């Protein structure tokens, strides 16, 4: 009886949070769609400001009801600088490069993203990662200022992006939080695809394909990690998480999408990376070598996360975890469909390019 009343109380407390979270996701999604589908610069700017405002407000209220607001510092700053540069016709080259570095998350300008990661909920941060604001900002910026990043500055930025990709992958190697480690792969791939954007038509094509593969991979892997955290309370990688037997549905999704995500043949990322490899090769041998190192590290990061979540003996408490609910089955079905799409892209890449 007491357990039931406690459960009811817990449910009634969690309802407002869930509702506000849904509204928040809706607002964030609308802003994300806005920046991607904006037909004109003013609409893009409005959506860009809306996205940052949404992220900053949600980050500021992360302490919950009845707690003091804690405004983030770096995220509003990043939003202001990038919005200002996007609105400015013909900024100077160094300023253009700065905007690119902030929007694209080149180290150490990625800290605004990390600050938001710490304050936003898992799903809100996932939305921000899937939205890839850096890519669309770069696209818009290059459209508006086609000559701003030509020449040696473009090559320097390209090298910075590749170096950031290596550093992000390396950080993924030492992260104990699975979501953080997988995010490191996403950020690293994001840097790679932004580097690809500096290398002409093939680079843009590669970036587009890699963007699709990366968004699909991030969606599946981080959703699985979120479900594992929600259902089994797994927050850290450990040799005794052993979730493969406890959550076989999530296990098969994670392992299949994980390998495809890091460029295994059979997935769209394989061709995207191959295309990117050729695009980079025409511009810089050093950048290509860095790209190869990044892809190698990403595979190791992914497998480390997989082993830390799904391998090893299962803890006794987790054996009695609740069976998959109906909503989870739907969720898994959608994620499986996304995985199948990525496989189709790997078998017939021409469909996506």
């Amino acid at each position: 009886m007491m357990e039931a009343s406690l459960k009811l109380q817990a449910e009634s407390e969690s309802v407002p949070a869930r509702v506000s979270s849904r509204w928040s996701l809706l607002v964030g999604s609308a802003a994300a769609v806005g920046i991607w589908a904006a037909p004109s610069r003013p609409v893009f700017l409005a959506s860009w400001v809306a996205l940052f405002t949404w992220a900053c407000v949600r980050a500021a209220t992360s302490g919950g009801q009845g707690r003091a607001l804690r405004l983030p510092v770096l995220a509003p700053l990043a939003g202001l600088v990038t919005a200002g540069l996007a609105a400015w016709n013909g900024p100077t080259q160094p300023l253009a490069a700065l905007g690119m570095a902030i929007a694209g998350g080149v180290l150490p300008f990625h800290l605004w993203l990390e600050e938001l990661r710490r304050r936003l909920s898992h799903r809100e941060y996932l939305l921000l990662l899937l939205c890839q604001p850096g890519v669309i900002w770069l696209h818009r910026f290059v459209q508006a200022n086609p000559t701003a990043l030509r020449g040696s500055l473009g090559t320097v930025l390209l090298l910075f992006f590749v170096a950031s990709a290596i550093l992000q992958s390396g950080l993924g190697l030492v992260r104990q939080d699975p979501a953080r480690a997988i995010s490191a792969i996403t950020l690293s791939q994001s840097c790679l695809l932004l580097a690809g954007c500096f290398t002409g038509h093939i680079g843009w094509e590669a970036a587009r394909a890699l963007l699709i593969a990366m968004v699909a991979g991030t969606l599946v892997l981080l959703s699985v990690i979120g479900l594992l955290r929600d259902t089994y309370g797994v927050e850290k990688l450990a040799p005794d998480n052993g979730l493969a037997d406890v959550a076989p549905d999530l296990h098969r999704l994670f392992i299949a999408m994980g390998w495809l995500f890091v460029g295994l043949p059979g997935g769209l990322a394989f061709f995207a990376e191959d295309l990117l490899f050729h695009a980079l090769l025409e511009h810089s041998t050093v950048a290509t070598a860095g790209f190869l190192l990044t892809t190698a590290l990403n595979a190791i990061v992914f497998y480390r996360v997989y082993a830390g979540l799904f391998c090893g003996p299962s803890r006794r408490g987790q054996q009695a975890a609740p069976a998959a609910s109906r909503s989870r089955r739907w969720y898994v079905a959608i994620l499986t469909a996304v995985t199948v799409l990525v496989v189709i892209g790997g078998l017939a890449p021409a469909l996506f390019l």
Partner: protein
Amino acid sequence: MNLHTLTLLTLAWTALTPVFFGAALLFGLRLPEALQQRLAVVHATGLLLAAGALCYLFATGSSPMVEVSTGPLLDTHGYLWRPVLLIDRLSVTYLALVALIFPVIVRFSQPSFHREEGSQRYWFLVSLLACALTVVSLAGNIDVLLVGWELVGVSSVMLISFFRRNPRSAQNSLRALIYYRLCDLGLLGTAMWIHHAFSSSAVSHFAENAAAPTAVGVAFLLLFGTLAKSAQLPMSPWLHRAMEGPAASSAIFYGALSVHLGPLLLLRTSALWMPHLSVRIAMVVIGLATAVFATLVGHTRPDAKTSLAYATMAQLGLMYVEIGLGLHTLALIHLCANAGLRTWQFLRSSSLIQDFQDNPLVGMDVRLHRLPGWGSLLPARLAGPLYLAASRLFWLDSLQWSFIARPFLGFFSRLAAFEDRLLGDSPAPRSHS
């Protein structure tokens, strides 16, 4: 049916079963055990028949080298991804080896995986390996070779961690993956250089490109790329850890087929590196050092599978020496013979004690004479320290950890800590409902 069609059909056939098993696993469909085993048998038999027909057509044909290509899989902005396959003496020999050994492994695995949890996963990975090996054998350009090479690596890693409840399996598979990926950088770098500096990435054009100024760099990268798969120094310490997997998978990977991919790749690309003496010297030195290292370490191992792994490693070292000296036919014969012998030895390793007890021809004196002759020639003062060093793998593991892995990880740990300090006042992430 001509050679062109048969080659494509063989490749399609080998891909069919892993695709089916993979789809079933992805959708969570549990296939009946009898169906799983029947599929594996049909797959292996089909591969055997196709390889036999391919060998026959090649042997009766007039051309020593046939290139098979299809339409491009991807054609965008001047970038073309076209699968090119090559049928020659080397590819049909290795394909025949794969086709002969694979049914043996399947037959042996049937009783081993009867009612075994995860048998579907096992059949998927083994059939994926057969497909990947077929791709590597028939690869006619560096891009196709990379596809097969990567798939071999992944299936190997997943089979090492097959018994996933054992924490050591996961650790060891991660270790194997690290070595694989490190050396794959060599192969990827080779691909990079070939695309950058050569007129074509097709293997049949390598001889024309051997005189290019960058060919020696490509050759060194290639040599590096082969080291992990064949467990040559300094990329050796993963091999004994790979014995965590099922015996049948150890046989096919580390006794027979996967581990011989290094020599196969060197033979396949010999036109490129043969003119460069420095590369051949490096190959011989690595091979000799590995042979000595593996022989010494192998004699200190207490279990059958690990001893066999080191024996294989030693033979592979000798193959590198043969290839470096230009004895390519001898190396190919050596490769086939070693693969056959090690398959048998690995498959019997689980029942070694029973074999000794039941076999009237094996008496006590066999066990008494296990020490090699040269062992007794060593002075006692040297034998002790040498044994100690060999039993500790000549501290190769510790050296690699102390001078490569720890500084590398340490740098990123410090970077991560610095990042955390910079944002240290931020609150912890909220719950994510």
